[in-house]
């Protein structure tokens, strides 16, 4: 039992725009309002749109649970690993070890009001991306589990 042709065509057109917009909010977390949690929730909306437009039996075969589960675990491990690597650079736990190193995200910020530069921030963009991946996996898994129902219901 699918929805009408208009709903399915609208969902097909809107999906890539939602994904790009959510990724933009995650990556620019240190310049504009946003960050990891907000961007991850916007990306999870794309999965919900897919589940609403097509019925659950059609979606269950194509959105795999293993991809979402692995991405959620990888996000949490990347978060903790980046915080632990600060111990090898001489700082305390959670120290900002990428700030003046010059490898990536290392440019210092001009003081006061300025147009932003994406190359600044230290470890903050890395942590934003890790949290975004984790929230995407968590929300997708929760929605898939609840729409599937308990064991013994209408399969």
């Amino acid at each position, binding site marked *: 039992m699918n929805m009408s042709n208009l709903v399915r065509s609208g969902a097909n057109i809107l999906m890539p725009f939602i994904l790009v917009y959510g990724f933009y909010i995650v990556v620019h977390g240190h310049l*504009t309002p946003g960050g990891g*949690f907000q961007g991850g929730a916007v990306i999870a909306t794309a999965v919900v749109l897919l589940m609403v437009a097509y019925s659950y039996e059609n979606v269950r075969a194509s959105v795999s649970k293993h991809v979402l589960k692995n991405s959620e675990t990888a996000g949490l491990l990347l978060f903790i690993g980046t915080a632990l690597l600060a111990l090898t650079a001489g700082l305390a736990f959670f120290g900002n070890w990428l700030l003046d190193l010059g490898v990536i995200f290392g440019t210092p910020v001009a003081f*006061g*009001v300025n*147009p932003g530069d994406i190359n600044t921030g230290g470890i903050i963009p890395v942590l934003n991306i890790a949290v975004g991946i984790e929230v995407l996996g968590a929300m997708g898994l929760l929605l898939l589990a609840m729409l599937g*129902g308990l064991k*013994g*219901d209408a399969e």
Partner: protein
Amino acid sequence: MIENIPFFCAGLLVLIGLAVIVTKRDLIKMVMGLALVEAGVNLLLVATGYISDSVAPIFTNAPSTDMVMPTVQAMTLTNIVIGIATTALLLSFVMIVYKKYGTRDVTEMRRLKE
């Protein structure tokens, strides 16, 4: 007294959520009342940190350098995520209770002795 409207709104939201939890007999409506209480608490947190004639604490193309307090907004971010987690687990438990008892009415669950 008219400029304290955000605090009155937060108190009104908590009061309405509490009235829904106490009065209704359906389980899912009680969970929605708890979500209303959490929304009122988040509004109270953000309204506490406001300074008059100030803008958001972001330095990218800011109109002025008088800014509001940023610590309270960080606390509200964490509280929203924890509210989502609590509501998700509560709804899972409501589904299990409905499957076992066959009803969502709270007064009938006290009489079935199983």
